């Protein structure tokens, strides 16, 4: 049965106050500002990816203003905050800050909504203490993370300290966060937490953490939390499977779109390039198609390589995309770990850093290699699943640094130290050999080498796009015609895909033809274009031929009312024969299948074909002597406007 109280927020009762501080983790995340918030939430989304889904996890980040009356239980929370008693200068200051914020009628918020993720399970069981019910763990426990039953996924996932969700509390002036969940059955629930301090309220002592939940009496001695069904304000709604984090009372400076975008790119450039993740920040899309434009835009990043001192993302992206990886074996004296190192030597770089990246695609740290902090290089290091789980054990709680300090077992700690030292040593070797190769030792430079640097760059590009085989001890170079895979038509996130398509297909499939006499365009009365076969659809069924022309990608014709259409035969060798085919002796009549307008043939051209919304359709009746096996290319003529 549900206890008969109308409250939204639950604080557990305790016999007395023992701890007078705020949760320590809050402060650490507070220091990491918006970067920490973005990292924790996106990492959770990546971890929650559908196992069977191959496309990217998508995360939508939105910021805005929210009226406080729309925040469920806002008044209750303000009552609690007013009851807090600081017992040291730090807590006093924090409470003062909270009290300064609670009188606002409208506050800013940020939300992170993910898709193609599992969401949490078992919300309807509430606080069930079952490993399968991830809602119960996420909503009502601290410092616990739910383990994947599949061990390879468990090692690839990001978090393991189980403190991630507190990053969201830390971003709120009053340490408040909500999470809206929609599970595989479409069940929608809203949960939330607030991190205060242990306090007295109406003659009773309470724990520091408050939960947005109903209380259900299980038996005489125990109660459990049950979530609310989500029918709150639209900012809190999550209607597709997955999780949405909502943080009201967002701290000042956390809502800058540009900062959020760079935070996403800084931590997750690899996931995004690899197509494992796409993020939308206030309608700006960051995906594998756009990330290159973002990191090379001076709006977001310093573009002068000499000036790159703190944020290295544009360099990492360039290194990862342009350089071939080399293998790097690093030992912790007990076991060897195999990494791939993408390494770039560029004399304009003033600070040399190595991005340590986990397979899930999240950067852990900008590693400073001992003695090489100011060397002109940039590198990206990534391992496999085994390396991943080792790196994970070396990470500090905020996933931002490799260290051995937090490891308790002295043997493991020694191994970790050894590993971190060896990592630096191996990378130093690579750096040194690159410096040597680029700076010949003596003062007199070999004149043969003046083109060497430029030449090597081109060579690398050529080698990566053309393979060679040695045949008769001579290299034979292999190349392929370009293949662009077609988009899937039934993909779930059609909106994104369509935009991608538009970007790729801006190339105009119509090509202007010069008249044979070479006269200038302005002088002839009509313009002739060849229509690339991709914009024409053609089929013969029984004694009818159907043609469809799509001019929507060709601005020149798009707005014309009509055009003339001619054609040329393509023979078995791919050669065009312009005057071989006689329209009049092949087609009985030609008309528009939609309105039955007849089209005439004149000078071997189909005249005045109507263009309706950029498309022209024809239905042609065939004469018996028509050669049904021929292949064509089509020409389109329109009057010259000039």
């Amino acid at each position: 049965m549900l206890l008969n109280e109308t409250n939204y927020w639950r604080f557990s009762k305790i016999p007395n106050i023992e701890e007078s501080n705020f949760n320590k983790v809050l402060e650490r995340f507070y220091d990491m500002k918006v970067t920490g918030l973005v990292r924790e939430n996106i990492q959770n989304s990546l971890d929650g990816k559908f196992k069977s889904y191959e496309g990217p996890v998508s995360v939508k980040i939105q910021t805005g203003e929210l009226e406080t009356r729309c925040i469920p239980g806002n008044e209750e929370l303000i009552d609690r905050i007013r009851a807090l008693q600081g017992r040291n200068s730090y807590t006093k200051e924090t409470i003062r800050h909270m009290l300064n914020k609670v009188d606002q009628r409208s506050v800013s918020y940020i939300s992170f909504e993910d898709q193609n993720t599992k969401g949490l399970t078992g919300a309807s069981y509430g606080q069930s203490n079952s490993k399968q019910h991830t809602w119960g763990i996420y909503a009502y426990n601290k410092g616990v993370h739910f383990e994947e039953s599949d061990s390879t996924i468990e090692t690839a996932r990001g978090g393991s300290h189980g403190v991630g969700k507190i990053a969201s509390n830390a971003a709120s002036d009053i340490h408040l966060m909500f999470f809206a969940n929609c599970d595989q059955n479409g069940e929608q629930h809203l949960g939330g937490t607030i991190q205060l301090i242990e306090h007295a309220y109406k003659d009773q002592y309470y724990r520091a953490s408050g939960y947005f939940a109903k209380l259900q009496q299980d038996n005489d001695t125990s109660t459990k939390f049950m979530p609310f069904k989500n029918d709150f304000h639209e900012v809190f709604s999550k209607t597709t499977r997955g999780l949405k984090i909502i943080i009201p009372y967002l701290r000042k400076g956390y809502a800058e779109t540009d900062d959020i975008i760079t935070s996403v790119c800084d931590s997750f450039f690899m996931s995004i390039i690899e197509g494992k993740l796409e993020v939308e920040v206030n309608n700006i899309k960051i995906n594998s198609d756009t990330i290159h434009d973002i990191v090379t835009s001076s709006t977001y990043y310093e573009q002068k390589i000499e000036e790159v001192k703190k944020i290295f993302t544009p360099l990492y992206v360039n290194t990862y995309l342009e350089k071939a990886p080399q293998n790097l074996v690093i030992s912790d004296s007990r076991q060897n770990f195999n990494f791939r190192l993408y390494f770039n030597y560029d004399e304009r770089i003033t600070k040399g850093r190595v991005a340590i990246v986990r397979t899930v695609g999240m950067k852990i740290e900008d590693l400073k290699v001992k003695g090489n902090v100011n060397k002109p290089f940039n590198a990206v290091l990534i391992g496999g699943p085994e390396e991943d789980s080792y790196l994970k054990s070396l990470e500090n709680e905020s996933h931002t640094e490799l260290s051995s300090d937090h490891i308790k077992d002295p043997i493991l700690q020694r191994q970790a130290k050894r590993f971190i030292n060896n990592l630096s040593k191996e990378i130093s070797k690579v750096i040194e050999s690159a410096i040597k190769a680029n700076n010949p030792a003596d003062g007199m430079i070999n004149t043969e080498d003046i083109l060497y640097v430029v030449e090597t760059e081109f060579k690398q590009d050529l080698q990566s796009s053309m393979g060679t085989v040695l045949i008769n001890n001579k290299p034979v170079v292999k190349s392929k015609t370009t293949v662009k895979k077609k988009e899937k038509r039934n993909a779930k996130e059609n909106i994104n895909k369509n935009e991608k398509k538009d970007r790729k297909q801006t190339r105009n499939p119509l090509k202007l033809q010069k008249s044979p006499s070479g006269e200038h365009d302005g002088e002839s009365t009509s313009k002739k274009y060849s229509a690339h076969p991709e914009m024409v659809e053609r089929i013969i069924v029984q004694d009818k031929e159907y043609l469809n022309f799509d001019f929507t990608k060709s601005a020149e014709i798009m707005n014309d009312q009509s055009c003339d259409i001619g054609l040329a035969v393509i023979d078995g060798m791919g050669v065009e024969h312009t005057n071989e085919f006689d329209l009049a002796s092949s087609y009985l009549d030609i008309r528009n299948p939609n309105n039955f307008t007849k089209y005439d043939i004149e000078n071997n051209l189909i005249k005045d074909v109507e263009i309706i919304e950029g498309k022209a359709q024809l239905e042609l009746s065939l004469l018996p002597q028509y050669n049904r096996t021929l292949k064509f290319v089509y020409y389109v003529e329109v009057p010259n406007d000039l």
Partner: protein
Amino acid sequence: MIYKKNANFPYPVLTNDSHSYAESNFILDVSLEESSNMYRLKYKYELDSPFLENLLKENRVQLLLIIQSRDNKYYRVEDTDQYVDIPKSRLSLNKRTSVQLQIQSKEEINFSLNEDLNDFYLQFKEKLNVSKHALLAYSNVVVFEGSTTKPFELFEKKVNPTLSSDIKIELGTETIIINYRNPEYQFVEFSQSNKLNNPYIYTGLSRALHQFIINNGEDQETVDLEVCDLPSSPLDIKLYQLMTKKMVTEISIDSIDEVIHKISDHIIDKYISAIKGLAQHGD
């Protein structure tokens, strides 16, 4: 024969360029090995049209591997084969060799079960019959260039005191050659000499790309890299590869500088830094 030039067939054909099949691809990759008297062409393909895959299974269509060198050779291959062996006496790899995979009908094929077509063709599929020996699909083309001596070099430099100009840019068959009349023009005594030569590199690239457009453009003004045939000159192939790798899709006389910017790694920027460095250090 290998289909490179796209044309409008009187029925839908699966190719990687046309949209007749809404989302299917037919992608070929070939690798080459040799033994003492044989070349072995190992091929892999990716076909994701359920309709055609099914026809293959039912043995109603035939896979054909086409190898075009001096002449055309056809190999009927089975779904399960992974390579063909060709005696060295019958295949010369000194010239360009192109390989394509095709699917041909072995009997009249009715298309009414073909759900892979695009919306235009779907409305006709019930009535569509394609005759025996008709081409139903063709893949991309894998090309092996005749043996080149400098497969990956783009530039060469020479010093020639008899030159009638200080610098001369020449386009060789495989490389761009920068000729200097005086070795001094290479800035050899400067530590940054490689960067100080970048303006010559720039000029060389500009010249070569201009020639590329003349060689490969239908109107000598633009080349659409997504549909043009693979260039025949070894130098043009290298430029083509560099451009497609950097996602350049079209080059025209007007866009040569942009293309150089994309395919080269900041050569002007590096030149400027080098000059600034010299100015500051006065060396």
